[in-house]
Structure formats: structure tokens, C-alpha cells
């Protein structure tokens, strides 16, 4: 049975093939990856909410006025 054991002390069992037992660098990679994916999902959701259909409203500005 695989056990969930992160090691922050650099003392990982290097003979183990347990994917949940990680070295510090692997763990940091995993933390970055999970955080990155969650952040991307969050940002894309926020962006989706902000997307509105473009409404064109004609305004006459000074440059358009002939003279």
C-alpha cells in the first residue's frame, strides 16, 4: 500500500518507487504544477465572466466633423 509521505528534509527513500514519496525538488515541481493549473482555471473563469458581446455605439467626435 502506497503511503502519502512528503519529505521536506531531503531524506527521501531513494529505493522506493512510490510516486507520492517525493524529493524536495519533485514536491516543489508538483506544488508549482497544481497551483499553476488551479490559477489558470481561476483566471480563465474570471475572464469568461468579463467577456461581453461588443456593442457599437456611434459617437460623433470632433475629428469627424467636417470643417
Amino acid at each position, binding site marked *: 500500500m502506497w503511503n502519502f509521505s512528503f519529505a*521536506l*528534509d*531531503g531524506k*527521501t*527513500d*531513494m*529505493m*522506493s*518507487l512510490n*510516486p507520492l*514519496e517525493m*524529493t*524536495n*525538488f*519533485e514536491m*516543489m*515541481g*508538483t*506544488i*508549482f*504544477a*497544481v*497551483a*499553476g*493549473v488551479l490559477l*489558470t*482555471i481561476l483566471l480563465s473563469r474570471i475572464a469568461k465572466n468579463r467577456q461581453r458581446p461588443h456593442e457599437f455605439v456611434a459617437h460623433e467626435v470632433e475629428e469627424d466633423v467636417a470643417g
Partner: protein
Amino acid sequence: MARAIEKYFIIFCRFYLGGFNLVSGLNYFLLFWPQPTVRDSVGNEYVIASMDLGLFTFAKVLEIIGGLSLVTNRFVPLGLVVLMPVTVNIFLINAFWSPLPHVVVSVTRNMVMHCILLAAYANYFYPLLKFRSAPRPVWRDPSRIWKSF
């Protein structure tokens, strides 16, 4: 759905490889964790020689630059190319020679992720496959560098 899985898998690989290399590179200079010790394996002498030559320090600088580019999503194809020699060297030294199964799996995973990312960003590398090419030196038109930003 498949496209979404593909997108997030690529993001996962980019952040994993970036975070791994960035922290590994920073740890060499800042030592917030003990450095991994060199174990008995055939590649030992190569690692020790590269340390003596200062290549190890150079590799760690490359890891920081490449890791930063992957994590911040800036110049990603360049970051992948910069990191490639480091990943390949670590893979070749450890994958076939390391007595530690965890290390073998770890370096193989990094190599596979790197290849996946190179394939994911392949559209930036297609020009390299030009069969016949002519030189177009950068010094003739240096503005092309910042134009390509």
C-alpha cells in the same frame, strides 16, 4: 473536453518542469535544503569532473533561467531549448546507471515531460526543419531581435 485536458496537461508539465528546475537551481546557490549527495554510480566521475570545471554552476544558472521562463510563461520555446542540455545530461547520467530506482523514474519523467513540451510548442521549431537554408545574419538587421518580441 479532450482539448481542455490537453491544455491543462501541458500547463501542468510546464509548471512542473519550471518549478523543479527553478527550485533546483536556486537551491544550489541559496542552500535552503541540503544538496543531494553523489552516490556510487558509473556517472560519478563525470559529475565530479563537471563540478571541478564549473560546469555544474553553469548548469544551475541555466536551470534558473529556463525554470523562470517556464513558470512565468515568457520565452517558453527558448526556455525549453536552454533547459534541454541539462535535462538530457541528467537523464543520460542517471537513467541507465543510477542504482536508485527513484532517481531513474524521476529523470525519466523529467525527460518525457520535456519532450512533451517540445512537441506541444512544435510550431516554434518547424523552421528548424528547413531542408535548405541560407544565412541571414543578425548584424545586417539587429532590429529583428526586438521586432520578434
